[in-house]
């Protein structure tokens, strides 16, 4: 954000616009207004699907099919939200999603801190090769392990449990380790010095000196891991078969398939699923943006 502010201030500071002849200034102002108008139209277009979910979730079954679209239902059916908790094991879906997401995110954070520290701050033979392997796995398409890992979990007796959905995260996701390593490499070398003089081992240095400085990176990993576990559909679809064990996305899919015409209720359940993600986004927007930018700049 600091860069943007700098850019903005240098632009103001040039003062070239005042000395410029009128037509040019006018042209700029018109271009500016056109840009604003375009952004308003585009912004609204991007919001339409989300507005549609909320709007439909407050309709009666019949109102859904009325043309032209009623964006604001005359009498909002708040009772739809009560109804979905009665006809669907929605509370169980929410609980399952929370279990998988919390355990998965915890694993991603702990493992990426540990492995990232090893790759960023410790010197050991073979480290560069391990880092190359890490970068390679980031590029590998996951589809190739879809069938064999399913068979692996079947042999382990993990099918229809939450284990396949969060245990792999405890062994570190390549992308999260990469993010953490990039962040830790930027920390000043003096951080360890104090600990070394006190005779602290590397484990104590990590948790008492390094980890507390990694707040932003930890937040970024936690948010992305949260989203991946919470939004995951293919995993639950393949591994879970008992209804009461479904996560929210799988539950919504299952319900939509069974009662396809009850759109108002499907949308109410979707709103329940989307709401936490949106709340999280507004609470931690800067970490999102930071994380994506870190990942994007990794390509340089």
């Amino acid at each position, binding site marked *: 954000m600091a860069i943007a502010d700098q850019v903005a201030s240098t632009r103001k500071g040039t003062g070239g616009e005042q000395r410029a002849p009128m037509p040019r200034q006018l042209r700029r102002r018109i271009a500016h207004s056109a840009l604003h108008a375009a952004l308003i139209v585009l912004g609204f277009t991007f919001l339409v699907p989300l507005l549609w979910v909320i709007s439909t979730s407050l309709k009666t079954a019949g109102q859904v099919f009325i043309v032209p679209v009623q964006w604001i239902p005359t009498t909002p059916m708040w009772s739809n939200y009560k109804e979905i908790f009665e006809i669907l094991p929605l509370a169980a879906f929410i609980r399952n999603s929370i279990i998988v997401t919390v355990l998965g995110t915890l694993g991603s954070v702990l493992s990426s801190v540990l492995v990232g520290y090893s790759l960023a701050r410790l010197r050991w033979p073979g480290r560069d090769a391990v880092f190359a392997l890490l970068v390679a796995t980031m590029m590998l398409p996951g589809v190739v*392990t879809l069938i064999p890992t399913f068979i692996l979990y079947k042999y382990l007796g993990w099918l229809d449990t939450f284990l396949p959905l969060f245990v792999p995260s405890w062994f570190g996701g390549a992308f999260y380790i990469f993010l953490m390593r990039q962040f830790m490499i930027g920390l000043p070398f003096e951080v360890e010095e104090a600990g070394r003089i006190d005779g602290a081992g590397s484990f104590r240095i990590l948790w008492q000196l390094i980890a507390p400085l990694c707040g932003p990176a930890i937040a970024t990993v936690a948010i992305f891991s949260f989203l991946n576990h919470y939004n995951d559909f293919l995993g639950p679809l393949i591994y879970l078969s008992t209804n009461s064990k479904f996560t929210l996305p799988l539950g919504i899919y299952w319900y939509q398939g069974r009662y396809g015409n009850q759109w108002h209720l499907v949308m109410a359940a979707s709103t329940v699923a989307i709401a936490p993600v949106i709340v999280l986004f507004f609470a931690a927007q800067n970490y999102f943006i930071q994380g994506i930018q870190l990942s994007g700049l990794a390509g340089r």
Partner: protein
Amino acid sequence: MPTMIKRRRRPSGVQLAEWRDGWLYASPFLIGVTVFWLGPMLYSLYLVTQSWDMLSPPQFIGLGNFGALAADPLVQKSLGNTAFFTFIGVPIQLLVALVLAIALNQNIRGRSFYRTVFYLPAITPAVASAVVWTQIFNPDYGVLNNILRIFGVAPVKWLFDPNVAKPAFILMSLWGVGPQMVIFLAGLQSVPQQLLEAAEIDGATTWQRFWSITMPILSPVLFFNLVISIIGSFQVFTSAFVMTGGGPQNATLFMVLYIYLNGFRLFKMGYAASLAWVLFAIIMFFTFIQFRISNRWVYYEGKV
């Protein structure tokens, strides 16, 4: 040279402790890669030679699976669908993402608000967006046809028309370009402002400035977006699975969907694993090609 000198010295106790800890802390990743990547990939190589429904014991059929998939018309169909979605969809996605990023890079009020709005769809659970877009594309009461009607366009059948279903999926994918946009935006903000101003004083037009200054500096970011988007696009699954199940007339039967159907509906494990390897090879091929061509058009600062 210094490394040679170091190597001759025997490692001290402190150094040995650091080696041990380094390997120890990296071990979760190493174990994870072995158990969840290398192991399954090796096992999958074995699986490819088998005919197995997970009920009766697997049967060795050599390269029979590959013979079967070469003759399977649905393989060609799904490869064609996936290629269409990727090679038509990704350029459009990146163009939209770039245009949005350029618009947001201007000094306008409400930038962060628009950024939020454009990014929100990307974090919406895929199932929820699929359900919503099924409704939006509905020929009778969907929003899209409602809006088109205002402009006098006859109702389009969208997901029910084999000719329009894939373009409909591409249209929907444009809704999720937020991450690519944010990456472009980060790249745009690293373009030195003095350079653009100097060029403007020299009389360069907006277009010239964009092509000669902004684009070269943005090219590594564009390259990254391209590689990641193509890998992701080749593996499209959830939207097609929820919205069409591959129809109409297999028009949206994408590769991963076909792999899923073979593996988890028909329980043809060997066949599904073979299909996965084919897709894997295709993705790796295009990633490799992109890296090979990249030095012709990607400009890295400091690397003259």
